[in-house]
């Protein structure tokens, strides 16, 4: 029995939530259920599972016990009522939106998002006949001014990629709720260890689990976590609340209450879009979550040391790490990210594009690649890679200059990271002379 007097802490839940010992075999680690499908007990049970009258496994495109352990653990850590895993972070956030949107709707999103997200929202939503407005995430009036009668969701990142802006979650959630719309927050850069957006009013949290949750750069994945707190029956979301033609007239919100959005997300959106996570990847993400707290403390400590080093460096024109004492986001960090402002940030090297490229050629411990949130330290030049599809105006809105370099600080020894960065600066000096 659970003891109502006792609440388990974050690190305990990171190790245990969702992972009851297997009742059949006693296996203590979460087994990798590498199966496409599940044998039904009898025709009545099969019918009950497909009708959603009973929680049961049917097909791994829709559910899988290894994924379920990951989903429950993520929901526990974020403070949500449940989660659904997806094949990637982009698949997760599109599914989160797709579930609640209909053609003619409108979305308001932060302009300082991951480049892949900007591209996805801008082009894919248009194909779905959904309108989109980008706003400066730091400007509450801009969020309010962008709202229309058809606005059905507000979308932002806890810590923007790569500009490092910190979202005033409570303020933007209040703007969303005054408009009877949900706030969707991408919490990839903070992880639930550093910030739990649901506690500040966010309705839906999305993740690229590829990053710090996996933590070792091995697997692509994503997830949607639902707070269970948004009232889908407020009249603005018939797509969630009314009987669904895609599920023989089932009214998800009425039938499943708090769990209605998640049931629809799984039983319709995941079923129909088909972007299911592989069980093996789910296993690796579960392994990653077990050490999330330990790793994030180290990531943050190293990131703080590197940011302080860069801030004093004569070849650096600016460091955009929200954890620096003179950051414009200092107060928001104190509020939302008291354990640290993450480990991904940008700096601008003196000498622009040429110096940036020489710097990247000069380092040998930092890996030059297009990912973040690995135990290994990573470096990239956004203007020529991750944000390549953005035009100059969009680049500026996302806080990126030609000489901007993005770092993802790993869990190596900080002294070795500073040594390697100094080699990069030496290479940049040589390139100039």
């Amino acid at each position, binding site marked *: *029995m*659970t003891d*109502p007097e006792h609440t*388990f802490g974050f690190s*305990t*839940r990171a190790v*245990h*939530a*969702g992972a*009851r*010992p*297997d*009742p059949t075999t*006693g296996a*203590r680690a979460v087994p990798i259920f590498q199966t496409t499908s599940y044998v039904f007990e009898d025709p009545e049970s099969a019918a*009950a599972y497909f*009708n*959603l*009258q*009973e*929680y*049961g*496994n049917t097909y791994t495109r829709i*559910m899988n*016990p290894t*994924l*379920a*352990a*990951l*989903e*429950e653990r993520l*929901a*526990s850590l974020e403070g*949500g*009522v*449940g*989660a*659904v*895993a997806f094949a990637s972070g982009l698949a997760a956030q599109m599914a989160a939106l797709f579930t609640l949107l209909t053609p003619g709707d409108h979305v308001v999103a932060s302009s300082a998002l991951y480049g892949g997200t900007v591209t996805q929202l801008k082009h894919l939503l248009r194909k779905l006949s959904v309108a989109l407005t980008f706003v400066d995430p730091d400007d509450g009036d801009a969020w309010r001014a962008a709202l229309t009668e058809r606005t059905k969701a507000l979308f932002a990142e806890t810590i923007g990629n790569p500009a490092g802006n910190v979202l005033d979650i409570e303020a933007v959630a209040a703007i969303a709720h005054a408009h009877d719309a949900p706030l969707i927050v991408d919490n990839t850069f903070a992880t639930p260890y550093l910030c739990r957006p649901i506690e500040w009013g966010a309705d839906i949290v999305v993740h690229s689990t590829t990053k710090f949750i996996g933590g070792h750069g091995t697997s692509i994945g994503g997830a949607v976590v639902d707070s269970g707190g948004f009232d889908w029956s407020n009249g603005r979301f018939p797509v969630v609340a009314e*009987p669904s033609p895609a599920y*023989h*007239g*089932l*009214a998800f919100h*009425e*039938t*499943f*209450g*708090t*769990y209605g959005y*998640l*049931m629809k997300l*799984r039983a319709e959106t995941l079923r129909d879009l088909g972007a299911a996570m592989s069980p093996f990847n789910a296993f690796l993400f579960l392994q990653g979550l077990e050490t999330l707290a330990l790793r994030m403390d180290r990531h943050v400590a190293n990131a703080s040391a590197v940011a302080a080093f860069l801030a004093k460096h004569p070849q650096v024109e600016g460091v955009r790490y929200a954890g620096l004492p003179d950051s414009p986001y200092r107060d928001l960090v104190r509020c939302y990210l008291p354990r640290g402002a993450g480990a991904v940030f940008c700096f601008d090297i003196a000498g622009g594009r040429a110096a940036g490229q020489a710097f990247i050629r000069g380092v040998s411990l930092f890996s030059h690649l297009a990912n973040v949130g690995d135990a290994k330290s990573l470096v990239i030049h956004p203007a020529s890679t991750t944000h390549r599809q953005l035009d100059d105006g969009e680049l500026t809105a996302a806080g990126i200059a030609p000489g901007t370099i993005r770092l993802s600080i790993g869990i190596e020894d900080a002294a070795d990271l500073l040594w390697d960065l100094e080699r990069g600066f030496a290479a940049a000096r040589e390139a100039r002379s």
Partner: protein
Amino acid sequence: MTETVPARFQDPQTIQRLLHDIRTIAIVGLSANALRASHFVGFYLQRHGYRVIPVNPRETTVLGERAYPRLRDIEERVDAVDVFRGPGAVPAIAEDAVAIGAGALWLQFGVLSFEGAAIAERAGLDVVMDRCLKIEHARYLGRMHWLGFNTGVITARRRLA
């Protein structure tokens, strides 16, 4: 936002004890429409071995069981009364639940009635409010964790106690 439900009406210990102890559940407002939430709950509880007695004046039979117009018409022992009616109907249902000697009054999602709860509590009934009987069963005894829901269960034991 809705009113805050006191913790004793959503107490995990009470809920788990009820799930273990009750066998016969009268469901007030059990619909014959297979797409209504009450039907989902009744169907599920039957599958998991509970005896379900429909209370619905507009039906004669639901889920293969004879339906009664009122709780007071039921001729056998009822362990728990599960309510799918508007909050305004709850005080009278609570009085009926007391009259037939039921052991618990269970009010589903959104069925908030402090007056009804007080009537049942004064007579010694356990009261659960704003919780779904199916979901709580699935959380503690069933397979809710198979679909990625946050059950709150943390255990290193092979079988749940």
